[in-house]
């Protein structure tokens, strides 16, 4: 347990201190959302209608941003070898790393979402719904991304390939995240239905992600 806590704390510290990792993600999120009105025009009614979708897309892209460093950084400085040899199961160690990644990039996005909701003319209820769905859904993105990070860790230029491998797998999360947010705003589906499925997707990803990533690392690095 202390080993897992140590991994968690170390990754959090690295994320906060090295290059302002957490803030970069939020900044990217802000820029993506800022670009949208330039692309579609400053129509507040339209922005309010597609606001949840924009916030979700922004969060999805921002989550991808730091993923290629999630394991590659540890491989470069050698700490991945220590994690592989440690008595702690690799699955749990990777889950701790993913949790740290979510706390340092996913959670700030959830916190920033209400503020960006204001820019997109979302009313408070809609903003709350989007923030809630992001809170429930972004862990799934991180844990799915963990698989991609493990698959591409040994590649020299894994960043773009990582996005190509991971994005199709995130489609269900995107669908149910936006559906839940829209259900809360305009209906007619009750909020609970898509939101429950979104939570289920997150739970599945938390189970599958660390196992698949651990298999990929054990098989790929020898």
């Amino acid at each position, binding site marked *: 347990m202390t080993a897992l806590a140590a991994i968690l704390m170390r990754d959090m510290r690295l994320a906060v201190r090295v290059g302002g990792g957490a803030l970069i993600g939020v900044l990217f999120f802000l820029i993506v959302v800022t670009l949208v009105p330039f692309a579609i025009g400053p129509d507040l009614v339209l922005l309010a209608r597609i606001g949840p979708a924009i916030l979700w897309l922004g969060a999805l892209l921002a989550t991808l941003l730091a993923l290629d460093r999630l394991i590659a950084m540890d491989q470069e400085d050698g700490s991945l070898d220590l994690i592989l040899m440690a008595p702690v199961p690799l699955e749990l160690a990777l889950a701790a790393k993913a949790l740290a990644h979510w706390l340092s990039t996913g959670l700030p996005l959830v916190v920033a979402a209400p503020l960006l909701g204001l820019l997109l003319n979302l009313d408070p209820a809609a903003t709350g719904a989007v923030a809630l769905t992001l809170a429930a859904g972004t862990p799934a993105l991180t844990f799915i991304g963990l698989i991609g990070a493990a698959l591409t860790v040994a590649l020299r230029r894994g960043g773009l390939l990582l996005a190509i491998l991971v994005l199709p797998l995130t489609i269900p999360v995107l669908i149910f995240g936006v559906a839940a947010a829209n259900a809360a705003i305009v209906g007619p589906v009750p909020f609970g239905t898509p939101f429950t499925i979104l939570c289920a997707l997150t739970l599945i990803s938390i189970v*599958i992600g660390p196992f698949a990533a651990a298999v990929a690392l054990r098989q790929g690095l020898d």
Partner: protein
Amino acid sequence: MPLTDLANPSRFLAFVDAVLPWLAAATLLAFALGIGQVYLSPDDYQQGATVKIMFLHVPAAWLGLFAWVLMSVAALGTLVWRHPVADVAAKAAAPIGAAFTLMCLLTGSLWGRPMWGTYWVWDARLTSVLVLFLMYLGVIALWRTIEDPTRAARIVAVLTLVGAINIPIIKFSVDWWNTLHQPASVLRLGGSTIHPTILVPLLIMIAAFTLLFLTLHLAAMRNEILRRRLRTMLLMHADAAAGA
């Protein structure tokens, strides 16, 4: 011959050489029969001759899915038994599966233009097949990025199995998201809803395309084994040259 015998690439090559001509002949025969049946089958009273596109579309869709299933089984063979021919089977199946998936998309959109009035709609089935196609491309890209074939096989195997778990989830989500395509009609409880004059040629075409897939797959596996031998020989040659 038990499956373990085929784990030896030389025996596998001998097996392919023995089987391939027969398989190719069976494919030709099945296509001759199938195309004849398709020619004789009646036009649809609403869709006219465009209904014939279905005889390419449905087999392509089936093989697009079948290739991923085959890759998943091969992935298990790679990860669990370290079966060397399983690596080759998975690698050879990916481009063929991608090609059939693309064919499914293209024939579907050619049919959609006169029938739905547009080449593309964001309908659930179309979208899931498009996602399947993207995942095939991801798998092929990953195969090509990793130089060492055995390591590539194991890493791609993980991706293939993750995909196998996710494809039904994606399918379900996309269905929930939007649906316009006609529901399943060939295989369903209570019997098929297709008239026998269409169903029989369709089943023959599916069999013919499946034979074509097997032929192409075995040939591609043979090529891949030979390519790997060539690679090993080149590496040994380079080693010998460096040592001398």
